[in-house]
């Protein structure tokens, strides 16, 4: 193999757990891996190249094939609907997608407004519930929206529920459980089958052991 396997990693919340998982699968990531500010990190002895991307962008890099594989949350997969293989549930960064709002409030009957980072997921969910809503796309601090009257409800990921709590919001509906997934570009899945299959097997082993412990 001359060309390294390129792995798109999500920066932020999932990153540390993902790095931990790869280490447990015996991939030699150096100790300073987490502290680096570099966006591309080569690990020559393992023929791996890591690219550090925003979580929402990981499936994009993988779909276009500039990364062979990647680690992405199911929330992002649902929102982006990219043409990639979702091969493995890594069972890390567990959380769920939920609808939340101020307690004892109803949706506006005329034009219910939903603020979210996930416009596709939110509109698909409300459609499946037989409701037409208006989506307002925000990029962060979604909890603000109902507090200052921008929206009736929000759709966002909830892990501990602390942020909702501290801002006086309550979860009204759960949409779906979320974990991180190992995703693969369809061409790489064939052209680099040996390396990728090995990675899947090694990760699977770690996951099975962990799941047993839990």
């Amino acid at each position, binding site marked *: 193999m001359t060309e390294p396997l390129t792995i798109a990693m999500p920066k932020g919340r999932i990153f540390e757990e993902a790095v931990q998982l790869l280490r447990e699968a015996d991939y030699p990531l150096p100790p300073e891996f987490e502290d680096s500010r570099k966006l591309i990190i080569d690990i020559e002895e393992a023929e791996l190249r890591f690219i550090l991307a925003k979580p929402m962008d990981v499936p994009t890099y993988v*779909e*276009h*094939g500039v990364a062979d594989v990647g680690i992405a949350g199911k929330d992002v997969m649902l929102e982006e609907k990219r043409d*990639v293989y*979702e*091969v493995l*549930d890594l069972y890390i960064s567990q959380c769920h997608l939920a609808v939340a709002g101020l307690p004892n409030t109803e949706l506006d009957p005329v034009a219910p407004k939903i603020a979210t980072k996930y416009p596709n997921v939110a509109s698909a969910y409300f459609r499946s519930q037989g409701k037409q809503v208006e989506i307002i796309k925000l990029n962060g601090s979604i909890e603000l929206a109902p507090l200052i009257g921008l929206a009736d409800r929000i759709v966002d990921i909830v892990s501990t529920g602390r942020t909702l709590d501290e801002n006086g919001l309550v979860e009204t509906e759960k949409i779906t459980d979320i974990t991180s997934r190992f995703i693969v570009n*369809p*061409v790489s899945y*064939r052209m680099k089958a040996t390396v990728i299959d090995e990675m899947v097997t090694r990760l699977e082993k770690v996951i099975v052991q962990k799941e047993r412990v839990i």
Partner: protein
Amino acid sequence: MAKPLVFEKPLGMRDTLPDLYEVKSNVRVTMEEAVRQWGYRFMDTPTLEYYDTVGEASATLDRQLFKLLDQEGKTLVLRPDMTAPIARVAASSLQSEALPMRLAYMAKVFRAQQQEGGRPAEFEQFGIELIGDGTVSADGEVIALMTDTLQQAGLDHFQVAVGHLGFVDALFKEILGNDSRVRRLKRFLYEKNYVGYRQHVKQLPLSSIDQRRLLDFLQLRGDASILERAEELISSTPGYQAIEELTMLREFLEAYGVSDVILLDLTLVSHMTYYTGVVFEGYAEELGFPISNGGRYDTLLSKFNIEAQATGFGVHLDYLIEALQPKEQGRSSQCVIFTEEHRKEAIAFSVDKRKDGIQVVLQDLKGVKDLDAFTETFSDVTYFIGSKKEGKR
């Protein structure tokens, strides 16, 4: 929406500049020659078709169709692929021709892009259709020919994944019983969602043996040895038949000497309903998207009121060229610069050269502002200026 600026084009539309055009036309000629060698005849169809005929029959998703209205209010589509139009012709104008029919095309097709750039919305597709032959030999011929044309075009490293929808349908039907359950599970494969597939299987009310069979099915990717494992999973006649077809197909491809680029992948579901038997996709190392695909589509022609089995492939020419990464070829043409008093000699000189097959640009000196910049791109420049003819470089 802001009014487009003069340099802007609709999303996904691209220009072909002269250098790329040259490269493209070379590849085009090579590939056309390759399929002619196998006795395929080229044809063309209109760019616009009715939505209700070709649009409906096509494998392209509805939201990817470019739609417009004609003067009578009928919905038209820009053809999204060539398979459906050729099926229309085969079922009408060419209906009296003897089957099997071997047809080829090189045409621009149109698929609207939803999200963003990075993929062309208008692109050239090259392909063949083998109509009226339901044998494994036909499946084999199509795959072997696709491999041959890709090789002739100069593509060194590529692979072709081959699956069989007959097997997927048979296995799922055996275990799940009804069609709607089969469709639900098949959709996970179509969406490439193995995680969702496994979760779905685990919550189905099945015996642990049947669950195991469905989960093991996901492992059926690799060399010929997976066919034995596939045989262990299946117990119905259509399933065995699919395996037998794949075994014969491998032998056929071996005889053509192309089996080393073949990879079996029984989980390959490239379309929910369109393909009915053997399916395949071609991949090149340098590109993130499949460069070619195809398969058996035995039900398409019945939409045009004839019963005929058919198979074929299509190569995405723009992707292929991206994967070939052709070297920039310098311009090989010569330049002749003349002044008025030498016009006659210059013309005679150029005509002779062109007769010898040399590309010659004849340019009046008065028409050029920056002579150095102009002559720089030519391999050779001849001057008919002043007192005598002069060669340079």
